[in-house]
């Protein structure tokens, strides 16, 4: 049996519906909401602020700390045990690495920028939604950034290359590869590239090409989310 049409009727290169909003958490320095299909991410940025414990301080530049957390009720029915897990720690780390290249924290020695990303609901692609949300939140916090960082997952199911796999596709029983990727659109640099599964070189390159187009569309949504925060009410 081969995979013909996508389970939710999307085109192969089509992402799920995206909603994004900046400034959703009042007390945070910057915050954002990013929903892609049934995956929902809230990101809140605090800082730059004083960093403790002190041994983590870097006197040459500020550090970025990401916290990825799926809420207990966010999964597919099973309760997600609260607290850091091996998986969430790893994803926190790759999110940090995906976002750091656009930030310039040299002005903030010994300080930290904390990014908390919470998922009330997940349906695959959560680290990508988290990165997309976090980069809106970092811009909303007034930090100097080279660009926003959109992220999406690409992959293959049987012989088809897909963009933005949902859980049903990701867990399809057959030949599947899931490749989350993030990019700095201005320079085309890839800041996140992971893979789970098997894929040939040709398929991977095709998938990345398709992913880039999707990333540029997500980038537009991110920009719009920030601009919408200060729209209306005046003569602009």
């Amino acid at each position: 049996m081969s995979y013909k049409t996508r389970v939710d009727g999307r085109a192969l290169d089509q992402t799920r519906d995206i909603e994004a909003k900046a400034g959703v958490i009042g007390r945070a320095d910057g915050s954002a909401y990013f929903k892609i299909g049934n995956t929902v991410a809230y990101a809140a940025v605090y800082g730059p602020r004083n960093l403790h414990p002190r041994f983590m301080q870097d006197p040459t530049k500020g550090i970025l700390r990401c916290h990825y957390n799926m809420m207990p009720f966010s999964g597919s029915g099973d309760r997600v045990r609260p607290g850091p897990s091996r998986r969430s720690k790893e994803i926190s780390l790759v999110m940090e690495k995906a976002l750091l290249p656009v930030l310039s924290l040299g002005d903030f020695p010994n300080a930290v920028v904390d990014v908390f990303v919470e998922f009330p609901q997940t349906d695959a692609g959560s680290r990508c939604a988290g990165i997309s949300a976090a980069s809106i939140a970092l811009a909303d916090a007034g930090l100097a950034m080279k660009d926003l960082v959109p992220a999406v997952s690409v992959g293959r199911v049987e012989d088809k290359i897909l963009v933005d796999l949902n859980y049903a596709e990701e867990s399809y029983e057959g030949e599947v590869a899931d490749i989350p990727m993030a990019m700095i659109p201005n320079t085309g640099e890839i800041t996140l590239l992971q893979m789970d599964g098997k894929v040939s070189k040709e398929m991977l390159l095709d998938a990345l090409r398709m992913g880039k187009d999707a990333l540029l569309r997500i980038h537009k949504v991110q920009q719009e989310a920030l601009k919408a925060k200060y729209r209306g009410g005046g003569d602009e």
Partner: protein
Amino acid sequence: MEQGSFDNRGPRRFGGPRGPRRFGGPRRDGPGYGGPRRDGPRYGGPRDGPRDGPREERQEYPEERPQEQPEELPPEGPPENAAPPLVKEREVVVPGQELCIGLDYLPSSGTYRLNDKILASLYGLVQFRGRLVSIIPLSGRYHPVQGDVVVGKVSDILISGWRLEINSAYSAVLGIVNTVGYIRKGEDLTRYFKIGDYIVTKIINVTSQNLIDVTMKGPGLRKLTGGRIVTVVPSKVPRLIGKGGSMVDEIQKATQCEIVVGQNGAVWLQGQPESELLAVEVIRKIQAESHLSGLSQRVTDYLKERGATPAPEVTP
């Protein structure tokens, strides 16, 4: 909203001694004493009139921070045949957005050059000054600059001074040598400022590692007693102050509140309870609408609508 607690808003309005002096309250000339109350605007700047010779006007409120632009830059605009910028003046832009193409414009604060393009690195409003393109941020913490008057909250007592939180990534230190009056060595510093007190101070030094030294030596620098604190985004402080202090003066007159605006976005105000609330509302309104034009007119209208006493017309 952060707010000064109400338990310290007694009838006593001086920043001076709390109890009878024989119980060891701070000395009249100690650092906790901000001098006798004077009328007139207090916004961190000099409160006295000209004392020795003509004082440079409005030195307490530079309308814009002295920018780090080198003076030899050509003041004139871009050449006639320059490609027009991709964005309008005062347009909201986001990091990574293209502002100009070509070498006719120069990147200033909040922007950077990538090949032949100028891109935004901050979320804010575009500003063109001659050939320079810069961005006024819409958010972000306070960035300490030497000479700024800031309102700080005492967060710790150190061996020879106090640590102040100033809504920045870094805390400031007020050393006892930078206070007014004499404090003996080994004296209990909480007699002057306790944790949670608000103080108007001036930044005297910022090091490369962002260690911030502040002083209380200077006109208008004092401890704040009573009243309440409102915080605004530091990048919007210039709009709250207005040209040469016009906006804050208008709110002070209309609400009969005394207002101190710190460059760090901490605003202290004191007056009748209802007028304090009105002043807070107006300050919030200014913060929310500072990116739109015609702000001062809308604030005047709003104050009138809310029944505040209109500011008397000043005839030159």
